[in-house]
């Protein structure tokens, strides 16, 4: 024992680090290059069974569909957002107003009757798709400012079949 201790005294265990560092740097560069920053994406689920399916005449929907109309300018921007026959205007304020109107219709969010309610969106052919998404968003609910949770309004969204472009234009 004493002898061994004497031998190791003052000697330094030298490991050759360069090989490891080479590999580690390679790995680092690989992971840095393959990194792709993806913004979180969300989905709006829409259930659209094929049209022309025989609907059971006994199951008449208890509520008529809430009609939301989106009219477009020739360049595709929003010309008017209509709730029923009322014009709510354009821009973010219109979608907020739509959100309020939907809340008025359903009364209380989360009420079981909201499951039977549906919104039908009727959009012009050339309207930019972002407006439709905003309208769908305004109908499906809102984000609670205090808790950040989503308060759901109406989840059933339908689309009116598109009018052919020639007729719309």
């Amino acid at each position, binding site marked *: 024992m004493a002898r061994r201790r004497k031998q190791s005294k003052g000697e330094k265990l030298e490991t050759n680090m360069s090989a490891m560092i080479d590999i580690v740097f390679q790995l680092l560069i690989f992971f840095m290059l393959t990194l792709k920053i993806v913004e979180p*994406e969300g989905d709006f689920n829409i259930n659209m069974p*094929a049209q022309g399916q025989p609907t059971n005449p006994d199951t008449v929907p208890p509520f008529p569909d809430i009609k939301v109309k989106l009219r477009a300018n020739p360049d595709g921007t929003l010309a008017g957002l209509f709730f029923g026959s009322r014009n709510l205007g354009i821009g973010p304020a219109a979608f907020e107003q739509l959100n309020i109107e939907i809340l008025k219709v359903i009364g209380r969010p989360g009420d079981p009757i909201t499951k039977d309610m549906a919104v039908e969106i009727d959009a012009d052919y050339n309207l930019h798709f972002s407006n439709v998404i905003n309208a769908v968003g305004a109908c499906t609910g809102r984000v609670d400012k205090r808790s950040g949770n989503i308060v759901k309004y109406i989840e059933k969204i339908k689309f009116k079949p598109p009018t052919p472009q020639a007729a719309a234009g």
Partner: protein
Amino acid sequence: MAKREPNATPEAEVDMTPMIDIVFQLIAFFMVISNFEQTQADERVKLPRDALAKPPEVKVEHSLVLNVGFYRDMKGEKTDTQPWLFNFVDGEPVLPLSSGGQLKKEAKLFGAKGIDLKEVTVKVRADSEVQTGIVQELIKLCQDAGFETFAMSAMSGPDE
């Protein structure tokens, strides 16, 4: 000052330990945040933004992703007004309204795998400036092919 032995060669010794520590930390960081998940998303599609679009809590098992977007230049401006269906057939863009045959093939492919089309979600990743009518007609084509469940993608975040 330590006494230096006269015949010992001076050796510059760098302490590598902190550097290796940091490098390992970096590797661990990049490994954790990088995901190798094969996504069919296409970067050319500029998705609309909505506060209600929250990433789904449960991942859908079977999905068909349809990227509808425009060719854009470096600044993100449209170079063409014609929307295309990207990343669909062999990486070649196709016109959305002439994709009916391919959609039917996809439906058959799901059938061959023994997956019921009712369980397949068609994820429509449409650009914010795509005409709504084109998206609707594309959905119609999907319905003709037998798909029933649809989802429209949007970036989560406050409206622009």
